[in-house]
């Protein structure tokens, strides 16, 4: 019991980061149907942007904004410059996997070549710790939870109460029908990449705020739990991803406390494999099956 309550606390922090990253991932995947395996490396790149900003003596809060802005711009450019041209060129599902892995490797090793194989950390004020109901949080972790909650509320408002959100949901469900209804799907897709990219950048920065040191592989190591969150929640379902983040975040921290910290990620791996294999209709959901392309 003594180890479980603090583990739940860690779980909530992990879940917050996963929620931001997972909602961004699922939004983009749902709208564009591209499984972007370079997502984790985009997070790392945003973390490095934040690193450069804090090293220039600017506060970590502005670094968060810079990271999110970088993520948004980079993702839109990545889609416009590489992914969409490949899709128009006739590259199918498997080919797109190769394309996104290639981008992931190029990005990760580009960062490695540029920054070197070192450990990096954001410069910020030493946080104090706060005890809440047997769980210990640092002030940074409380800030991360708050950022995640605010981001999720904003996404909720965007999807439910704005025209753009409606257009996005329509494009995710049936792009052709959406286009026929007069929705500028190309612009919606651009905006989906931008919003997803902003969440991705934000997640990258809060991820490295929560660890003592990060490297060029920090983001890509976080990719599979993110995909697990998106798949568990149902691809293209932001609310599902929020729930998935809570389940996987807490489950992996509990596994770390009960079994061994080495197997923290394995929980997410196993959940992902089981969901993919046992309930493909659940993941493919109505959205993905309708858009299904022959492999």
């Amino acid at each position, binding site marked *: 019991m003594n180890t479980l309550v603090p583990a739940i606390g860690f779980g909530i922090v992990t879940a917050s980061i996963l929620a931001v990253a997972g909602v961004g991932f699922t939004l983009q995947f749902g709208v564009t149907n591209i*499984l972007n395996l370079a997502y984790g490396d985009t997070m790392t790149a945003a973390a490095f942007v934040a690193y450069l900003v804090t090293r220039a003596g600017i506060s970590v809060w502005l670094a968060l904004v810079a990271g999110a802005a970088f993520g948004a711009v980079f993702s839109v450019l990545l889609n416009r410059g590489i992914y969409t041209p*490949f899709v128009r060129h*006739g590259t199918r*599902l*498997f080919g797109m996997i190769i394309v996104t892995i290639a981008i992931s490797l190029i990005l990760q090793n580009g960062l490695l070549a540029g920054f*070197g194989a070192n450990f990096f950390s954001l410069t910020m004020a030493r946080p104090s710790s706060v005890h809440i109901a047997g769980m210990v949080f640092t002030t940074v972790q409380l800030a991360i939870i708050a950022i995640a909650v605010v981001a999720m509320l904003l996404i909720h408002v965007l999807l439910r109460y704005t025209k753009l959100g409606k257009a996005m949901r329509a494009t995710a469900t049936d792009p052709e029908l959406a286009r026929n209804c007069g929705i500028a799907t190309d612009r919606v897709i651009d905006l989906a990449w931008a919003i997803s990219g902003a969440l991705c950048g934000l997640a990258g920065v809060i991820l490295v705020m929560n660890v003592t040191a990060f490297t060029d592989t920090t983001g890509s190591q976080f990719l*599979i739990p993110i995909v697990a969150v998106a798949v568990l929640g149902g691809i293209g379902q932001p609310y599902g991803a929020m729930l998935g983040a809570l389940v996987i975040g807490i489950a992996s921290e509990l596994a770390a406390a009960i079994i061994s910290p080495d197997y923290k990620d394995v929980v997410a791996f196993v959940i992902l494999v089981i969901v993919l294999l046992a309930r493909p209709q659940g993941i493919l959901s109505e959205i993905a099956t309708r858009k299904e392309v022959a492999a």
Partner: protein
Amino acid sequence: MSVAWQFYISTVLIYLGVDVIACWGLNLQFGVAGLVNFAYIIFQAAGAYTASVLTLGPAKPARLGGFQQYIGGAHWPFPLPILAAGLVGGLLAAVVGGFAIRRLRSDYEAMVMLVVSLIATSVATNQVGLVNGPNGLALVPKPLATLVNLSPIGYQWLFAGLTVVVAASVYWLVHVVTSSPLGRTLRAVRDNEQAAAALGKNVTGLRMLAFVLGGVIAGVSGAILVEFISAWSPGSWLYPETFVYFTAVIVGGSGNNFGVMVGALLVPVAFLEATRFVPQFGPPGLIDALQWIIVGVLALVFLWFWPRGVIPERRRRFPAAGEAGVRRSLLRMGSGR
């Protein structure tokens, strides 16, 4: 030819052999049967671990000077560890294929396999008693080294010859499979699963067969590799290595055994192995990073310009039998029989 050159050439030849064998196995799964196995490298790893453990002998406890722990150590004579590696690769493929080969979109299938690869790395790293954890196995004895009395360079050529023999046997196997009716059926399953199933083909069984055969071949390639480099650890088989083999198959010409051999020559050997002998420049790790960037760019360039590879799969036509058959049946219909 100076001894240094002979070492260089025989070493590259052995790496080429290993990569060509591995690419043929992957081509059987992906190019011929259309299976997106992003865990391919774990079957090579399983073969390598099997061959190591079966030549290292029983693990010694630390108090007797043993420095690595593993299960099932034995001193098997030369060809047996390699054959056992193929067997284990095939068995592992049967297990993984048993739960992972489903009718999934190929990007989801790739995802499942990627995760299987990560789980395998995690288990091999964290279960130290299994295959010595993150440090891996080292000092694997070279096959026949104690039996033949050769100079180091003579042994290099012996090993290169051995690799060529194994590669030739594997080529024979994949050639028999791809040029037989079985190969035709596998391609039919790849190109149109529903149509193949409608013609009464056991689609799942056929995909499983290709998956297991690919696993056997990957296991053998791992055995040859580890007997040559005599060390193997989780760092040798991280999932991006599978990406290198996929790039090789795509660059060479997926579905074409000869093209895949050319791809294996161009990608893993030219970019990853041969550059090991290039003088280092920049900070440590820079060359590795640049190699990965080059492999990534190469994959993108080929998918854009030559998605079918340098030597594309030959378009197979069956005009004589088909047209004659159709004409005959039309005639039969015409004559009212």
